[in-house]
């Protein structure tokens, strides 16, 4: 395919130094896609990074006193693999570099996972994570692209991210850019009709530079998705709209990496990864003890955060 052949961008290595913490792990987002197979960090290294991100999520939401840690936790493996597993080209010093790959967090309430990944990637210092949701901080309760460079979309009203991704993907094609567009959606969010409009239009334009990931953590705000609005199996539905689809164990880093490999080598059109996860993955024993496996939209109180951090160390 033309867009693959046209690919040639290699991110400069000096960006590695932006964030001191980042040097603790040899996992970066700046690996040439073409050579990703060779230079990719090991699954264990990615898992370590995921653990670091999980700790950030617990700390920042507990410090904020509000937010969505469980919604963030389920998405950690995918966000980590994307940003540090060699699947995305980006430059924290040039967030508007037009050859960058784009990540849109349509389930914007899970932004702690994205902020943590961005801090680890060097967009800003990890200290800033603790300003989450505080007046004046660009780390708002939902992503605000106007205030935080590197954020690709201002989300928070569910259902809108995939349409934005279609727009980005069309623009990249028009400009003959090698960029890929990744959009992460919630399984509850799939109830929004706009998502299905976007799915249909992505197929119309055979957007092979667009990859959607559904974080199927089994819960939405008021309960289990299978009780509130059951749209499983997602793969069958989205396939019926002309997409390529795969279903994976989304909290298994190796499975995530394999799925992203497959999705990024599908040139026929848009590709979906149904990432079957657990909401709150990584701190499940704490949530179990609390008797709430959804634990939607609330931070861990300090004493539970302590327990959680112990689990994550």
């Amino acid at each position, binding site marked *: 395919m033309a867009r693959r052949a046209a690919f040639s961008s290699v991110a400069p290595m000096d960006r590695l130094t932006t964030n001191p913490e980042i040097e603790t792990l040899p996992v970066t987002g700046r690996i040439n896609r073409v050579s990703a197979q060779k230079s990719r960090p090991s699954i264990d290294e990615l898992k370590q990074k995921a653990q670091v991100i999980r700790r950030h999520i617990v700390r920042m939401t507990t410090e904020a006193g*509000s937010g969505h840690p469980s919604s963030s936790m389920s998405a950690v493996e995918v966000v980590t693999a994307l940003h540090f597993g060699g699947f995305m080209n980006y430059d924290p010093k040039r967030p508007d570099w037009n050859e960058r790959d784009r990540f849109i967090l349509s389930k914007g309430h899970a932004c702690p996972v994205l902020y943590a990944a961005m801090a680890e990637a060097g967009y800003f210092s990890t200290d800033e994570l603790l300003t989450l*949701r*505080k007046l004046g901080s660009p780390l*708002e309760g939902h992503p*605000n692209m106007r205030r935080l460079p590197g954020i690709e979309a201002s989300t*928070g009203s569910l259902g809108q991210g995939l349409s934005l991704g279609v727009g980005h993907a069309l623009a990249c094609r028009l400009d003959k850019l090698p960029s890929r567009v990744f959009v992460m959606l919630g399984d509850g969010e799939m109830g929004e009709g706009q998502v299905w409009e976007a799915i249909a239009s992505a197929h119309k334009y055979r957007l092979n530079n667009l990859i959607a990931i559904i974080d199927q953590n089994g819960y939405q705000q*008021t309960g289990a998705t299978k009780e*509130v609005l059951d749209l499983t199996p997602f793969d069958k539905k989205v396939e019926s709209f002309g997409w390529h689809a795969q279903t994976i164990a989304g909290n298994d880093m190796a499975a995530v990496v394999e799925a992203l490999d497959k999705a990024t080598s599908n040139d026929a059109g848009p590709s979906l990864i149904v990432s079957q996860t657990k909401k709150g993955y990584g701190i499940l024993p704490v949530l179990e003890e609390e008797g709430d496996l959804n634990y939607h939209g609330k931070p861990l109180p300090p004493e539970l955060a302590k327990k959680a951090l112990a689990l994550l160390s």
Partner: protein
Amino acid sequence: MAVEAGKRKLGQATRDAFGDALERLGASRPEVVTVDGDVGNSTRTEKFAKAFPDRAFNVGIAESNMVGVAAGLAAAGKTPVAASFACFLMCNAYDQIRMSVAFPGMNVKLVGSHAGISIGEDGPSQMGIEDVALACSLPGVVVIVPADAASTEAATAAMLDHDGPVYLRLGRAKVPVIYENGCENFEIGKAIRLRDGNDATIIANGLMVSVALDAADELAAAGVNVRVLDMHTAKPIDEDAIVAAAKETGRIVVAEEHLAAGGLGSLVAQVVTRTRPVPMEYVNVGDRYAESGDPEGLLRKYGLTSAAIVAAIRKLEDEG
């Protein structure tokens, strides 16, 4: 989660008062049903849903369908309460409200919680600050913005009694008690005069009613006697109360937790200019989106304070 109470006792959030009232009123009104969009635990329709599970429908995160389903239930004789965050209800389902509810005059009760910037940390995507403008742009829809728990309870009953579409705007945060002994004289379209005075009038709704009372207290201490109207119904607006205020006090400040455009201020201004032109000032969010932060800090930063109201009155005094 609470906002400045001034001298008043902090009471329930209006969404909580609504949730309690709906459950209570639902018992004797078998035609009442709820249609939720996966936020019943936020809007507090959850209480009704737990009490009357057969009459509660949660269609998931799909506000357009939520409103359409409610309209269909209304067409078939039910009295559906369709509830979500104010912004998702009004913004995400506006065309469905226009065509499936307002145009055919369906008896749907639209309830929007989490209105205003006082929701705090969740930030602008979850804040309904244009919802009153949108609701007032729907011919035939009654728009109610109650100030405290007691008036919300009364508004909920009035809403269910009213034959036709209603929008009820609710807040997330606990708010000061305005009506200590209940709000029995609540009537759709009739402002409540909370404070007498002839030097100026503050017309407010929602959260800003208690802030207006604080401002009036402060001004009273300085010898300025300000009338305070709880204009709980934005539509139909109480023209008589506005005309009387213009005539008798000569100056009007409108205070609301909303954008400048299309809100209560714009409705009052049209009445004033048509009937008795007097100088006015506006205390509102202006023409901007807010941000994440603690509710009190946000209200201060975005100028929704008694100090801002006092300054507005002073400005009108200085001008003549």
